[in-house]
């Protein structure tokens, strides 16, 4: 187990860490830019791999715990890779009173993951958001870039099917 992990991190070290170094350099290794650096790193890697966080800590000369603290405090960061399609169900107040909870429950049931999780086949990551600010469409779900308004529990299955099909086509 340990061996595999070391191997992974080594590969990542050779192949990928150059990108995070470049990002850190962009910000002139400025400690106060930690959040921005992590945001850019996440945009680059899709999530924040442990090795990347270590690298940020070393290069900025701050304790790893501070990097980890920031990475786990803010909603914007994820520590695990995301699936091919990101499904976001809005749980803003307007969506809530219009029935968002039943949309989320049905999505969890259909994808067989809880909010925050990724399906075993790596196709879908399910997330909730606090408000997308398009309340007129509520309840809203977003798959990739597609906004689906007036969501209902019954619209969940066809929507997932559509994207599952897309992945094959």
């Amino acid at each position: 187990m340990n061996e595999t992990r070391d191997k992974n991190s080594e590969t990542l070290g050779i192949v990928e860490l150059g990108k995070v170094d470049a990002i850190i350099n962009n910000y002139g290794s400025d400690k106060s830019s930690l959040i921005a650096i992590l945001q850019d790193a996440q945009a680059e890697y899709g999530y924040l791999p442990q090795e990347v966080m270590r690298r940020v800590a070393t290069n900025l000369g701050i304790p790893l715990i501070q990097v980890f603290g920031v990475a786990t405090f803010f909603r914007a960061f994820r520590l695990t890779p995301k699936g091919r399609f990101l499904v976001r169900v809005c749980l803003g107040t307007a969506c809530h009173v219009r029935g968002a909870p039943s949309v989320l429950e049905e999505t969890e049931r259909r994808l067989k993951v809880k909010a925050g999780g990724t399906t075993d086949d790596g196709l879908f990551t399910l997330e909730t958001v606090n408000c997308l600010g398009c309340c007129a469409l509520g309840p809203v779900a977003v798959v990739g870039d597609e906004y689906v308004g007036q969501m209902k529990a019954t619209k969940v299955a066809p929507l997932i099917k559509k994207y599952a099909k897309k992945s094959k086509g």
Partner: protein
Amino acid sequence: MKRIKNRDDLEKLRRTIVEGRDPKRTCIAICAGTGCQAYECEKVVEAFTSEIEKQKMKGKTDIRRTGCRGFCQRGPITVVYPEGIFYQRVKSEDAKEIVSETIMNKRIVDRLLYVDPSTGQKFVFEKDVPFYNKQMRILLGHNAYVDATKIEDYIAIDGYSALEKALFEMKPEQVIDVIKQSGLRGRGGAGFPTGDKWEMCRKANGDVKYVICNADEGDPGAYMNRSLLEGNPHSIIEGMIIGAYAIGSNEGYVYVRYEYPLAVKNLTTALGQAREHGFLGKDILGSGFSFDIEIRRGGGAFVCGESTALMASIEGKVGEPRSKYVHTAEKGLWNRPSNLNNVETWANVPLIILKGANWFSNIGTEKSKGTKIFSLVGKINNTGLVEVPMGITLREIIYDIGGGIPDGKKFKAVQTGGPSGGCIPEKLLNLPVDFERLTEVGSMMGSGGMIVMDENTCMVDVAKYFLKFLLEESCGKCTPCREGIKRMLEISDNISSGRGESEDLKLLEELATVVKDFSLCGLGQTASNPVLSTVQYFRDEYEAHLDGKCPAGVCKALIEYFIHEDKCNGCGLCRKNCPENAIIGEPKKPHAIVSEKCIKCGICREICKFEAVAIT
């Protein structure tokens, strides 16, 4: 573009821009705010662009992608100027007809006009649409004339002339006096007098001072700030430069929510243009005053809307608030005097400087001046952003502007102030909306979320919803907030699942008071409002839950689904779609739900075409 070096150059530029524009020229303004983006307005823009070319109107007609027009319910909104013909729910297929009919032949496309659902009356012009005509859009109104990516549009509507006036005709103290006299109060929630805040920061010791714009709009169901930033970013930049001049600051930050990519994009473009034109940077307009602004993207933490947490986050730290016995005006960002205002507050500043304190203080009530933008959402016919003078009643907002409750349902409550606010019942609908009145009834102004709820909304569920939100967003630093919210949620969860006891309400109120009185920051101090206000105004609903009933039919543990035998024709749709196979019945014969298997997901009720599925 050459940097503008003095007042004359700016006025010359403005004249050139204005003179180069023909007010009679046709312009198709298409709303490109995030709401309309979700309705695929970009395709509409493309369709108009190609139609204008096809129908040989290029060079005679302009297309303007504007910021949010507010009437999100009817998006994408397209207005044809100079007449102001208002088309709603415009799709890309409609572009051809609008160009050939309205633009070429000056005829109205009837089917795209707005029809008032309650009266059946049709409206041609934007100014007559009831959604707009009771509003006072001194801030949002500008969105119609501005393409956020074009600084010329802003300059053409007198943009940056307030800055010019402040820099060349006023001393910093005079700027502060005008803001004080205007009565402007913070639009972020608490309503602190803006002029006083500026004065404190100006008088604070220190050479380096910061001005910050709080654009970390976190209240779920509120998107006013985003629409201002996306639609008219220069108005906020101008406000900040004026504020910086008054306070004596040379560095500014805009802390913007990471979920707002379009706002970040438009603001970045606007900052670049402002720098290029000499509104930012060294020696602004040749005045000798220097100031620049940086963007910081938030990380998505609700607590970062609180000033000290926000400043910690700008410093690259975890966004935990601190106690404010030393005000941030004295020791804020990097322990230096800092002044933080909300987006909407900053947007008001140029208008006040330009039009004067009296103009502003004539709008509103005794202690709350000017307008306020609300995002009117939830169970309401006209979802959207509304800007109204302070003092307007809730009833006017909800019924006259919002068009009332959909589907003939009965109004139950309106929630203001986001997770810090409360639920206001029907008997208080004639309440004039201002800072004091909303606080008196146990809610608050907040940043402007206004969520309307109807008879099908359960107030215990709403309180639980906010508690759950706050539990997740509480930073955990102080015990009353961290533990108190958790326990309040447990108690309300018990109540909503039928495990509540008669003493629970008293305990809930007691706990809520403790959390309110002893929490460290605004998040905890106001976290009890959703609970206290619902217990105060909807006590009977809580008591019904204690008796095992959820009158709104929301709380799962207290409801049962059943099928009306006389309405069910046995089509079998519900049986086929039930995820738990909990519905039995033979084809063409009334079906029934096996309650032991039913998980109360509601799919059968949603899918039934005969309204045969009901809740007890």
